[in-house]
């Protein structure tokens, strides 16, 4: 089963997204902060990370930097608001190697499509 790590400091978002993807036969892990996410990564490597940019404490951009330092090949999709001040962060995430971005409020079918596509792309690769 493909594994997805959801990182968001809002419990409602974590729970909903995890539930949403579990119904689609995806093993979901959740983390409420960047630190927690980094801790989880080392034990259970996910196939994909859904990472909120705006979090209290270590924000999404910094978390992305640390994730990529640990594991440069890990796929990360950023979840962002639509505020212009986050534009700069988006640029940074691009440089740091984030795969894609979804804007909150997001279209659920779009979120489903992007996540499922990335996880399916993984499956096709031969297992090491």
């Amino acid at each position, binding site marked *: 089963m493909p594994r997805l790590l959801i990182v968001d400091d*809002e*419990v*409602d*978002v974590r*729970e*909903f997204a*995890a*539930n949403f993807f579990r119904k689609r036969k995806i093993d979901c892990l959740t983390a409420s902060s960047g630190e927690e996410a980094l801790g989880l990564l080392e034990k259970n490597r996910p196939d994909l990370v859904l990472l909120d940019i705006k979090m209290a404490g270590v924000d999404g951009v910094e978390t992305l930097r640390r994730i990529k330092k640990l594991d440069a090949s890990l796929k990360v999709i950023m979840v962002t608001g639509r505020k212009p001040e986050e534009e700069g962060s988006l640029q940074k995430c691009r440089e740091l190697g984030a795969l894609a971005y979804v804007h*909150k*409020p*997001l*279209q*659920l*079918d779009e979120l*489903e499509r992007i996540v499922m596509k990335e996880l399916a792309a993984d499956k096709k690769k031969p297992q090491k």
Partner: protein
Amino acid sequence: MAINYKRELEGASKTMILVHDPNTLIMMIVRMIVQKVRVRHAGILLHDRERDTYILTVSRGIKGVKIPKGFARMDADNALIRFFRERLDKKLFNDGSLIYEEAKKTLKKAKVARKQKEALKGALHQMEIFDVVACIPSYFGDDLLAMLLLGEKKSGRSFGRDEIDFFSALASDVAMAIRNAQLFKELEAELEKKHHLFIHTTVALAAAIDAKDHYTHGHTARVTGISLEIARKLAEKNKESFDEKFLESLHIAGLLHDIGKIGVPEAILNKEGTLNETERKCIEEHPLVGVTILQPIKELESSILGVKYHHERYDGSGYPEKLRGSQIPVIASIISVADAFDAMITDRPYRKGLSKEEAIGEIKRVSGKQFDAQVAEALIELFVEGKI
């Protein structure tokens, strides 16, 4: 236990009358549905007119099942939105609501056109994604303003006719509340726009005066700024309690205080050297010329006092009416001090402007004679605080 929906609705509408903010109202409605009808989750998508998208604004229900508010949206091309905007709900189902179970049966009916079935299929797919079993649209006319989304009942039973009617009644209340709030906002925006137009027109008029008087470039704007600072200072010191309306009148009066100079020939206005008696009289007419210009505008009544009397002096030696002391309206006393201060520090071709320190010294010297001592004191304090 059966719920008396009619009674609930009556109770709800009584409360709704008291709530004017649509967001509060919508929150109450969703909460009531989740509590009374016992659904797993419920939410409302509200139309964002600027982006033409529907945003899940209010959401309640079981953790993990309810969609976090502000998290999801449906764009105008979303199959569910299209279904309702094209009013297929009316064509396929009489009452306007879309019930998952019922719609699945409709898909099997032979008499339904293929195109409509396709649209319905798309809409149902969206319902699956949002994990909802009923959608109730809120229309104003044919405008889809909002959509109520309902998850399954906790009991797993399907919705009854009375329940759907109840939701539809709530949905039309939601539409009404949103529409009223929109109209109110539009009205406010319209008023503000008119007000801006008024202020900008005044500024344009003020610029016309400044353009005529070569040596006082920016004088009008500076006098207006200093006047407002003085008024704030006086209010802060509790010498006067100025309301918004007074500040507004002062703002306008500051901008227009020299409007009467439009009637003074430029040769006199820009003359280098001393003026003869006739020329002086001509210049001293400018407050009354200003009044003549502005009088037809009824809304400017209190500003006109500032224009008319900004050359009066506290000791009664000013013009045009030789008013003294408390006879001089405070709006004029304020402009008078600001006007004199700015004139003193501005360079003229025949003399260099004073330094601010020197000008303040001069104001101090004539305070209580030329100027109202309290107003002069306010200006001096502003200078000490570095605000002017």
